[in-house]
């Protein structure tokens, strides 16, 4: 089985040099860090908030917070991991403001071990994503991940979409490694089950499900 590739296409070897230059007041160095990670922060923020405007705000607030607290960055972790932690907190704060009636935290909706056990086993069609246009597929993926509790989708996006290691994810979310693994397993299984509504192999080969995937 292939391991999950990192989405950060660029080398990180000179990240520390950029961080140190930015600490010394070199704004061009900080702008380079923005250029390097803005797409990642945006993707993470939109996965958590599920709202484009909120994600734009989170990108701005996270980088501004990083800039103004740069002196406090101890260089014991990667700058990117530190930035992700700031961005996740900003994104969760957005969610809390929008849903004040509910507590939004990474510990939310953590039920028993059994709640993710597969109920639907049916196999998928080969290359199921090709049954849909790009726009349809994005809609399906977006709606499907939206249905997960924030704590699950945050772990999933950091590990499986952004390619952070389990340890980096744990550090960014201030969770233990076993907690990350447990949430990741359940996030993956729940997404699999929900996507199955769209991707299941059908006897007559059609893809006739109702728009929201319910049956």
């Amino acid at each position: 089985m292939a391991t999950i590739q990192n989405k950060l296409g660029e080398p990180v070897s000179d990240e520390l040099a950029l961080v140190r230059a930015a600490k010394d007041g070199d704004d061009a160095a900080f702008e380079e860090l923005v250029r390097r990670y803005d797409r990642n922060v945006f993707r993470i923020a939109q996965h958590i908030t599920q709202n484009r405007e909120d994600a734009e705000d989170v990108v701005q607030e996270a980088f501004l917070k990083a800039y103004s607290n740069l002196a406090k960055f101890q260089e014991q972790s990667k700058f990117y991991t530190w930035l992700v932690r700031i961005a996740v907190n900003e994104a969760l704060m957005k969610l809390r403001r929008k849903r004040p009636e509910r507590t939004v935290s990474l510990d939310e909706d953590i039920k028993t071990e059994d709640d993710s056990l597969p109920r639907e086993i049916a196999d998928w069609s080969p290359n199921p994503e090709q049954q849909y246009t790009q726009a349809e597929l994005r809609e399906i993926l977006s709606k499907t991940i939206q249905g997960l509790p924030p704590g699950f989708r945050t772990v999933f996006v950091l590990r499986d979409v952004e390619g952070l290691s389990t340890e980096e994810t744990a550090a960014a979310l201030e969770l233990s490694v076993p907690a990350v693994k447990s949430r990741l397993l359940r996030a993956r299984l729940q997404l699999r089950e929900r996507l199955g509504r769209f991707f299941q192999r059908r006897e007559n080969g059609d893809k006739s499900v109702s728009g929201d995937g319910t049956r």
Partner: protein
Amino acid sequence: MKCSEFLHELTNYLDGVIDEPTKMELENHLSWCHNCYVVCDTTKKTIEIYRDSQLYELPEDLRSRLRSAIMKKCQQHKKRPPESA
């Protein structure tokens, strides 16, 4: 190995962080348990589909607008007198 034990190890298996004896046990289970094979295979596809989806890409025009706004706010922050501790 029971199916529940297989599922418990699924994430480690998919991430390739598993010792050789456990891996062999899991693959032995997969060779006869069709349900676990399907769950494993479709979970792997789920991860790949999300990873390759380019969901929430940042368009270039929005990207440069955001970057300008960030740098402008940083400049404003710099000009502010330092906060007392």
